[in-house]
Structure formats: C-alpha cells, structure tokens
C-alpha cells in the first residue's frame, strides 16, 4: 500500500504539469480576447480554447508547449500582413482553426503555420485559405500533419507559395490532407523518413508533390489530379511510391510522374490515367516498376536517357497513344510479363504469355520525338504501315527492347 502511494505520488509529480494543466478560453467577450494574449498568459502544457469568432492577428509566436483548439472553426484573419502562427517549441498541438489572408512577400516565405526546430507537434483539422505558404515545417522532427485543407488562390508561379512544405525535417507523417490551387501541393527538400498518405493534391500550378534531395520517404494512396505536372521526384534515393493515382496532367511539359536522378526506388500499384506523359524518366537507376496501370496516356513512359537496370514487370499498358518512347539505341532495362493492349500476337501453347515478343517502341514515336508536328498523323494508315515494317525489321528502335513474355490478359 505504502509503495503504491509513493509510486502514485511520484507519477503525479512527474506529470503534474499535464494533469493540472489549465484551459484558457479565448473569445471576443472573454477575459482573454486575443490569441497572442492567450499564449502570453498560458503556462506550459495549457490548452487554449478558441471560441467561434474572428480574430485579426498575425505573427503569433507559440514558444511553449501548448494545445490550441478552435471551437467551430474560429476565423483567424491575417489581413495580408504576414505570418500567422510561428511555432518554436516542442509538443505543440494546433487543431480546428480557419486561417485566412496570409501575407505575401518576395523576401520572406510567410506561412499560415510555420514550425521551426520543434519536435512532437500535431497540426490537424485546419482550414487554410488565401495563403502564401500553408504549413511550413523547418528543421522539425517527429511531427504529424493530419486532415488539413489548404486552398490557395495562386495564379502565377513567381508570387505563390507551397501548400505543405518540409525543409530539413525528419520522421513526419502527412496524412489525409487536401491541397488545392497553390504552387506545389506538397514540397519536400532535404527531408528524410517522411510518410505521405491519402492526400489529395489537385489543381496546383506546378507539382502536386515535389521531392528534392529527400531520401527514404514513402508516399502511398495519394491522388494527384489536374496539376501543372503530377509529381516530381528529383535527386532522391530509396523512395517508395505505392498505390497513388496520377490523373489528367495535361500539357506540353506535363507528366504524371517525373523521375530525375532517382536511385533504388520502388513504384508499385500506381495508376496513371490520361496524362500527357505517364512517367518521364531521366538518369534513374535500379527502380522496380510493378503492378502499375497506365491507361489512356499520351505516352505511358518516356525514357530520356541514362537509365539503367530498371525493371518493368506485371504492369498494364492500356490504350495509350504510345506505350514507350526511347531516345537512344541502348537498352539496359527489363520489360517482362506486362500486359499491352496494343499487342497483336497469339498464345498457341496456352501458357498465358504471347508467343511472339512485343516491341513497345514504335518508329512513329521516334519520328514524333524528332518532328513534333507529325503527331497529327497519329493512327493514320501510312503510319501503321511504316510501324509494321519497323516491327518486322527494327532499324531505328532498340533491337533488344522487347517484352519477350507479354501477357495475354490484363493483371487485375
């Protein structure tokens, strides 16, 4: 008995701050009228409960571990003056606020919520509108960003910011967010071990998701639709891309997924639909592509060079204008057991794979590469004839670039 009470006493002592944390209510008629004031009077581990109303505030610095909760989405209007929240302490939670009118600047990146050098933070259920940068994580660790809605009004790339930006951050989870109409939906630079899951990033000016120099990250089950270009993954290693959807990224320099200088990645179970280019690959090595669906893209895959030891196995290529474009005669990549809707061969031995190999690179895709205007001759009889003759005796297309075992039925 004595021992237990000592233990309880010790535990209470240890977590005392937590257990007796106060709740400070902020509203227009309360004692504490502004959030800044609330932060100032609060002690560590207190909760700020912000009632419904409009708060015209900016540059709110949260410098102690606090939980800031909004009730019925109170509006925090920055009046285009600057940054709204700057979090410089560990263990901060921000929940359920509606932030509007973040200032635009050409010299500093104002954000709706900036987290600087902090750990264990949680940002959830926020609605951010009319913003420059949305959520900006700077040199942070072990944080979570859940269920937020970031809706910008970006028109030009040079004076707009990113929805969710991670810079030199580690072990962050970004989940169930919706990001629209900003420059880059989600942007990662020098950030490792990040998980990006179930987000919807659409109608952004530049990229839905943008990786630079970030390693060991996973993104899965996200949807990227109608962005300037879907996802750009550049100069990164060991990235896993699983079950994402890339849709309707149309335009001259547009693509579902851009890989540039990527090594040892895994791309599995994604779906690329109606993009001008499904995946554009440049200088990327040792990547496994499997179980992806390429449906109705202009080019399913465009390989621009310096890509070695990539394997494409068990993918579906359906109704693409071109399955594959290649700009060199060398091939060190493996295509095997994919389903190609353009395959015209037969399967006499009934083993499920076609008896004659499939050549995914057409002569016409070469011609279009050289003279882009010829695209207008797509699907003409003349083109079919020269494609056929190239198929019979390849001259321009890489001779060994074949799928020796094309599947007869598509992979479910």
């Amino acid at each position, binding site marked *: 008995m004595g021992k237990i009470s000592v233990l309880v006493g010790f535990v209470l002592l240890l977590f005392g701050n937590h257990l007796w944390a106060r709740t400070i209510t902020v509203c227009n008629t309360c004692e504490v009228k502004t959030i800044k004031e609330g932060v100032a009077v609060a002690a560590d581990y207190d909760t700020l409960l912000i009632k419904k109303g409009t708060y015209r505030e900016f540059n709110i610095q949260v410098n102690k571990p606090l939980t800031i909760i909004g009730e019925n989405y109170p509006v925090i209007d920055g009046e285009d003056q600057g940054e709204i929240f700057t979090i410089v302490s560990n263990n901060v939670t921000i929940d359920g606020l509606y932030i509007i009118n973040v200032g635009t600047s050409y010299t500093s990146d104002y954000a709706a919520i900036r987290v600087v050098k902090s750990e264990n933070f949680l940002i959830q259920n926020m609605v951010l509108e009319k913003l420059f940068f949305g959520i900006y994580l700077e040199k942070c660790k072990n944080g979570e960003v859940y269920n937020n809605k970031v809706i910008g009004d970006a028109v030009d790339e040079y004076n707009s910011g990113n929805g969710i930006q991670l810079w030199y951050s580690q072990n962050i989870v970004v989940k169930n967010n919706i990001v629209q109409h900003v420059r880059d939906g989600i942007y990662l630079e020098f950030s490792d071990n990040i998980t990006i899951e179930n987000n919807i990033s659409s109608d952004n000016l530049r990229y839905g998701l943008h990786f630079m120099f970030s390693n060991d990250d996973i993104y899965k089950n996200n949807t990227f639709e109608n962005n300037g270009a879907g996802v750009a993954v550049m100069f990164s290693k060991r990235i896993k891309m699983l079950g994402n959807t890339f849709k309707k990224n149309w335009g001259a320099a547009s693509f579902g997924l851009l890989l540039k200088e990527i090594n040892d990645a895994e791309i599995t179970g994604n779906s690329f639909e109606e993009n001008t280019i499904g995946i554009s690959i440049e200088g990327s090595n040792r990547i496994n592509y499997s179980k992806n669906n390429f449906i109705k893209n202009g080019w399913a895959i465009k390989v621009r060079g310096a890509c070695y030891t990539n394997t494409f196995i068990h993918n579906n290529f359906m109704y693409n204008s071109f399955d594959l474009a290649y700009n060199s005669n060398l091939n060190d990549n493996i295509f095997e057991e994919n389903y190609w809707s353009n395959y015209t061969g037969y399967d006499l031995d009934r083993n499920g794979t076609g008896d004659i190999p499939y050549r995914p690179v057409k002569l016409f895709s070469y011609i279009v590469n050289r003279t882009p205007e*010829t695209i207008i001759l797509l699907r003409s009889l003349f083109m079919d004839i020269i494609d056929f003759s190239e198929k019979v005796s390849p001259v321009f297309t890489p001779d060994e670039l074949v799928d020796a075992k094309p599947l007869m039925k598509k992979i479910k």
Partner: protein
Amino acid sequence: MIKILKYSFYDLMRSRWSYVYFLFYLLLGFVLLFLNNELSKAVITLMNVIIVLVPLIGTIFGVMYYYNSKEFTELLLAQPIKRSSIFLGQYFGVAGSLTMSLVLGLGIPFALYGLFESNAIWDFSLLLITGAFLTLIFTAVAFNIALSNENRIKGFGYAVLAWLFLAVIYDGLFLMSLIVFEEYPLDSFSLVATMFNPIDLSRTLILLKLDISALLGYTGAIFKQFFGTNLGLVISICTLLLWTIIPVWRLGYVAKRKDF
C-alpha cells in the same frame, strides 16, 4: 428528284450488295465486341476500319452504281426531268443506303452491348458521324470521276487511285514535307494540310476524343488552341461539310452541261 432518290434507294435496298455491306458491319461489330469485351478498345479498332474501309467502299460502290445504271440514266434523260434531279437523286440513293448500312450495322451490336450506359457513347457517335460524312464525300467523288470518264476501266482506275492517294500517299507526302521542313514552324501548315484531306480530317476529329492527352504534348500555340478548345471540333465538322457540298455541287453542275 425525290422519286428518283426513292427508286435508287429501293433498288439498292433490294440488291445483294447492301445486305452484304450491312451484314459485314454487323459481324464486325459483334466480333470486335466479343473478342475485346471492352468498348473503348473496340472503338479504337473501329476507327481504323472506318477511316480506311468506308471511303474505299464508298468509292467503289459509287463508281459501280453509276456505270451499271448508265442505260437507265440515259433512258431517264430522254424524259422531261431536270438533269440535276436525276443525278443527285441517284447519288443520294446510293450514299443514303450505304450510310444506313453503316450506321445500323455498327449501331445494333454496340447498342446491344450496352453502349447507352457506357461513356464511350460520344466517341462512338462521333465515329458514326465521321463514317457517314466519309461515305457521302467519297460517293460524291466517285460519281464525279465516273461522270467525267466514259471509259469504265479508266473511271474505275481513277476512283481507286483517288482513294489510295487520300488514304495512304497523301499522308506519306505530308510526313515527308514535315520532316524536310522541320526547321520551320509547321503547326499551321500541318493543320491546313489536314483540312485538304477528308480522311485526315476525320482522323483528327476522332483523335480529339481518343488521344487528346498526347496531342496536348506538343508546344505550339496554334495546336493548343485547335485541340485544347472546341475550335478544332467546329472547324473540322465545317470543313467536312464543305467537303461534302463541293463535290455534290460539281456533280449537279457538270451533269447539267454534259453532252450525253
């Protein structure tokens, strides 16, 4: 004119060839759907058929019908009937029955296969519309050629040549000129060159639906305007109409002045 049209139409309806043509499309439709089990792929295959076969059949049928009914035409010419109504009546009889075979022959299997619930219906109806246009255009071209050539063999030869030129050779020349002049801005040239060939024009019209994502990969502003907005669709359909009206008009014009 209506009477002659009716006569030609019923004459063709009774003839074996319309049935063969109709049954061919019916079979093609069913086989395509049976083998592919998917509407969107069937639509792509069908496009190739429509672009190549429909003009060929229109041409050959038109020439054949004109030469076969020549004696009957001469008999009619002795009657107090307007010349233009004799020829236009015959022309619309042939073109009408061919179009009907095409639309019904392909429409029935696709309708049975649940086209109306699918979103491929717009692609498909566009396909049928261009098919109908191509029939009208190439039958008119064939009638024109036949009218200008008394010699059947020559007329037949010219008609097939016209088809071959428009279906294959034109694209070859087009491609070569694009490659030779690749240093120059070519987007308006290529769009204009497309307008001068009804087969290319119909192909472009269908590409607008099927391959829009690839077409938008090209940077030219004129291309972008043409393919990215409804402008392309409107211009293509208007030009197809023009392609139909001009040969039909010439048919009436030449027929009026010709000395039989």
